[in-house]
């Protein structure tokens, strides 16, 4: 498993670094010109751009037929799926930490600091986790040559899911429970995102076990 994660890292670390630079630049521009109204989009962009290269792993593996060779190594098929999901999750978490850092700097520099940073980051995490949950099983079914459309579709589905789940949460009687909603709602989003991601892992596992190369 560590060997597979290291392979994933070697395959896309240059892209991750490039996308991180791009994410910081775009976030900086958005926050400078758009101010606090752009905080949500800036956060989402940082996490999404960071996560993009890890979705490229499957495409890169497939291009060189490594997806076939990897199964001749002393690993199981479930190890391969685990490595894809773990790598993506790690990059998403790094993206979330990076956006926290950017907003920390932004809050110290601006006169209108954001007080809902946790909420913004949680929404970003939810979107990319839903996107990952959709993208991986579809990549295993349709193959890496359809990856651009699948990744785009996964991202859009993530956005829709964020608003859809937002409406559901708004209808929940959370205020009657006397909870701190600025903490509860983001935790709810993150928890649901992780549950969907885990559920997707098991579906992907079933698909990958039956895949022929």
């Amino acid at each position, binding site marked *: 498993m560590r060997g597979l994660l*290291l392979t994933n890292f*070697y395959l896309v670390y240059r892209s991750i670094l490039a996308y991180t630079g791009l994410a910081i630049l775009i976030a900086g521009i958005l926050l400078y010109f758009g101010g606090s109204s752009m905080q949500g989009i800036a956060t989402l962009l940082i996490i999404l751009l960071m996560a993009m290269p890890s979705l490229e792993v499957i495409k890169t593996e497939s291009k*060189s037929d490594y997806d076939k*060779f990897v*199964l*001749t*190594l002393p*690993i199981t*098929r479930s190890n391969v799926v685990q490595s894809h999901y773990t790598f993506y999750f790690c990059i998403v978490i790094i993206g979330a930490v990076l956006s926290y850092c950017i907003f920390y700097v932004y809050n110290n520099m601006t006169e209108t600091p954001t007080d809902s940073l946790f909420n913004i980051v949680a929404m970003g995490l939810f979107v990319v986790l839903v996107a990952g949950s959709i993208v991986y099983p579809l990549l295993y079914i349709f193959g890496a040559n359809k990856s651009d459309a699948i990744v785009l579709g996964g991202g859009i589905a993530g956005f829709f899911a964020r608003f859809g789940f937002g409406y559901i949460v708004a209808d929940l009687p959370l205020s009657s429970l006397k909870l701190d909603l600025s903490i509860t709602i983001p935790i709810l989003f993150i928890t649901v995102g992780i549950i969907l991601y885990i559920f997707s892992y098991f579906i992907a596992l079933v698909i990958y076990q039956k895949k022929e190369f």
Partner: protein
Amino acid sequence: MVDLLEIRNIRKSFGNNVVLKDMTFNVPPGAIVGFIGDNGAGKSTTIKTVLGLVSHDTGTVKIFDEENINIHPEKKEMIGVVFDAMNLPAHLTIKQLNNVLKKLYNTWDQNHFYQLIHSFHLPMDKKVNEFSRGMSMKLSIAVALSHHAKLLLLDEATGGLDPSSREEVLEEIINFVKYGDKGVLLSSHIMSDIEKVASHLVFIKEGEVLLSEEKDKVIENYAIVDVHENQLPVLNKNIVVAKRNHGSHFSVLVSDRKELPEGIDSKNFSMDELSVFLTRSEK
């Protein structure tokens, strides 16, 4: 001694297209089995079936006497694989590849790997996807030989190599089996390679085994005879392996030249001629 690889009655179809029909052969310890057939004959599908990359409809595949290699990943430590194209992760350098493989194989022999890399004159800091086909194949072979495998599955591994590199690779393959406990399945179109290194021959056509025999027995006992159509019945059916229709006469491959009736002269053949004969023949 148990066969390193045993394939029994394998059948595989993709939809209505049957690509492997009752495929049966084995790789005993100490053997280099030349696996020969035209493009599309089923060589790559057989190797993929052995490795569990594709499922099979019926039959059994045993590696080291175990079925279903996918549930015994530790057994894969003992298998070295080279496909017909470079299948290693594209953006990695040889150093990075070594880092990865030593984490994946418990038996990874870094010193031997670097020794092979050095003897194959491969660059350490160049990305794998910048390698020529010949360099890629040499790297794949170096990987296959660097984790103390007992069985090598080589799918057109010598294709695309210059004569000198091919010589080097063939020497490595011969060295690999010299102690008699390891084996190789070598699929190739290059009959001179097969002639040079193989101890056993398996010819396939349209997913069926036409001939599976020790190479020395083929050279010693087999023969091709040219006979007229009305002479066919006088040949012992048990020794007829395949025949080829030339219109007025037939060329027949027989498995025992001593069993030929008097008056029918046999002729010797090269491996190339045997390969062409079998792939264009009928049973």
